């Protein structure tokens, strides 16, 4: 059993209430930070822990904090990115729903470290029911003196609000999120200036993922050194993995970074193996944006080493033979999955979610969806496969924000690893479009 830093008490009855949460050690980091530490010491602690942004990019959180500009006379803001929308990812929703006070505790301690006097949790609009859970918990924190004026007599004051989005994946990108929080369309901003200098209302702002902020209390309470003992190399601590797809036990698992992928998929402690007694065809390990890998490459690196659940091991081999840990949205496809159809749903997703600001993404995502649709529905030509690769290449790196890359990678990777499946669709449209028909390797021999 790995250690559980965030979710140890998640199933305790009543843990959503202030009293029960407090009884289980809750808000200890607020007391410790506000009474015995300076803001700089909290930042240093988070830096030393090696915590990396849990939203997907994996950028060191403490480093991000240390970039925050501190000009005279301007407020600073902490904004929590709870716009969890990356397909395959549902850990933040789980955490907020079950442990609302953990996020609030993290927001208070982190806001203190950054010198923010007003902080926001930007939650995706579809999760209004979670917003109500958070608002209830925030009201309890105010009533108990952990929010508002002069918290615990420390002289530090903080207001915390929850802000709902309106249904737009793009608002998970931090500058689009800030635009949205200002009441505008979610069009990402050009960077620089970065939010650390010019963020919410033109003020210095840090935007952090829910899980990153929820990890701060443990680090501050128990110390960075304790935290950094867990994990492997630069992948320190634990990570919440959203496990979905064709497995026996879908759900959110807190793992110590470094668990072998094979163990994660097949052990009863985690995914419990592939459903319906089937074999595994492929895995998307870090949310829909990261490259899909076939069974052989997700279990072992190209060099034959066991693949581990760490940032480094999953990206071993680059995009040729590796992938990314990303947001930890881990979904498994069984041998009855049609990779073409699955890739089409992802391309459709990105087309739907493109904000329309940059033409390579606005036009390219539409092209990819259309071409994949025609291959899936039996009207594809052989050159369509290369056309997809070419469109993906022309989007990648040519947009203001990373949504373009996120849209291009899944298509490029599906063709890289499953090209025979796309060719089979083109060569045998009548079989590819038959109900329930799925490509299997034997067909490629016949073809």
């Amino acid at each position, binding site marked *: 059993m790995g250690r559980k830093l965030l979710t140890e008490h998640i199933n305790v009855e009543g843990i959503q209430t202030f009293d029960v949460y407090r009884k289980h050690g809750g808000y200890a980091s607020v007391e410790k930070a506000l009474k015995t530490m300076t803001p700089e010491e909290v930042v240093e602690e988070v830096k030393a822990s090696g915590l990396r942004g849990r939203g997907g990019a994996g950028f060191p959180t403490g480093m991000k904090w240390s970039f925050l500009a501190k000009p005279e006379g301007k*407020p600073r803001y902490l904004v929590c990115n709870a716009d*969890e*929308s*990356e*397909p*395959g*990812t*549902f850990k*933040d*929703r789980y955490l907020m729903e079950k442990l609302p006070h953990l996020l609030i505790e993290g927001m208070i301690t982190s806001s203190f470290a950054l010198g923010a006097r*007003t902080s*926001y949790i930007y939650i*995706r*609009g*579809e*999760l*209004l*029911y979670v917003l*109500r859970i958070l608002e209830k918990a925030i009201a309890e924190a105010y009533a108990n003196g952990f929010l508002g004026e002069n918290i615990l007599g420390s002289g530090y004051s903080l207001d915390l*609000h929850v*802000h*709902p*989005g*309106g*249904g*737009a*994946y793009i608002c998970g990108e931090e500058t689009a999120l800030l635009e*949205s*929080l*200002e*009441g*505008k*369309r*979610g069009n990402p901003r050009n960077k620089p200036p970065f939010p650390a200098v010019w963020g919410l*209302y033109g003020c210095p702002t840090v935007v952090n993922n829910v899980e990153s902020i929820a990890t701060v209390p443990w680090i501050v309470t128990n110390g960075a050194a304790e935290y950094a003992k867990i994990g492997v190399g630069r992948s320190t601590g634990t990570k919440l993995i*959203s*496990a*979905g*797809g*064709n497995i026996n036990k*879908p*759900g*959110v698992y807190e793992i110590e970074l470094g668990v072998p992928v094979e163990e994660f998929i097949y052990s009863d402690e985690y995914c419990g193996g592939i459903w319906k007694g089937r074999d595994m065809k492929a895995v*998307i390990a870090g949310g*829909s944006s990261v490259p899909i890998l076939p069974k052989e490459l997700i279990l072992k690196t190209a060099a034959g080493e066991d693949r581990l659940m760490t940032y480094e091991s999953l990206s071993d081999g680059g995009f040729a033979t590796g992938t990314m840990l990303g947001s930890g*949205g881990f*979904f498994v*496809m069984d041998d009855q*999955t049609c990779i073409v*159809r*699955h890739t089409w*749903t*992802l391309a*459709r*997703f990105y087309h*739907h*979610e493109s*904000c329309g600001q940059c033409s390579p993404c606005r036009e390219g995502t539409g092209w990819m969806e259309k071409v994949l649709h025609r291959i899936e529905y039996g009207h594809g030509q052989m050159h369509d496969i290369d056309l997809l690769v070419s469109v993906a290449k022309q989007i990648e790196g040519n947009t203001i924000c990373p949504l373009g890359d996120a849209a291009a990678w899944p298509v490029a990777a599906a063709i890289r690893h499953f090209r025979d499946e796309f060719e089979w669709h083109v060569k045998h449209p009548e079989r590819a479009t038959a109900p329930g028909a799925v490509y299997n390797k034997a067909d490629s021999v016949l073809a």
Partner: protein
Amino acid sequence: MDQTVENKKVEFSEGAMAEIRRYISHYPEGRQKSAILPILHIAQAEFGGWVSPEVMDKVAEILDIQPIEVYEVATFYTMFNLKPVGKHVLEVCRTGPCMLRGSDQLIEHLENRLGCKVGETSADGNFTLKTVECLASCGTGPMLQVREKFYENLDAASANQMLEDLKASTVRKPWEENY
């Protein structure tokens, strides 16, 4: 089309206005525009599940901004219905992870059961069927959302039961008692 007529005399109820004022108070002086999205959610709950141009104009008036600033936001974000809808809007997730767990079959089942296609409203006016992209419920697919509630791990039997329950239910607003 009763709803259109109703929307002409756009006035928020006291309960809704209290919520609106609460949200506006969350943002700094002069930054009240930040409250557009929260208010559009309130408006959609208040006025039958969609927001008409008249409702958007009212939101602009409350926030003291130009109507175009509300239009451009309401049309960008996909949660706001810009046309009248049935009593309940079924929003079925169909992105990759849900597809792996049977969202295609769920959509087909609902179309047959309701006698309408995706994007349409059932003849009895009870249900509008919509498809949406990922709702962060990938471990419990196939699933769908109705207003603030998630219905997860659906199969034909539980989907039918859900439809019956919804048909018999009263739609309440978040600021009302017994919500």
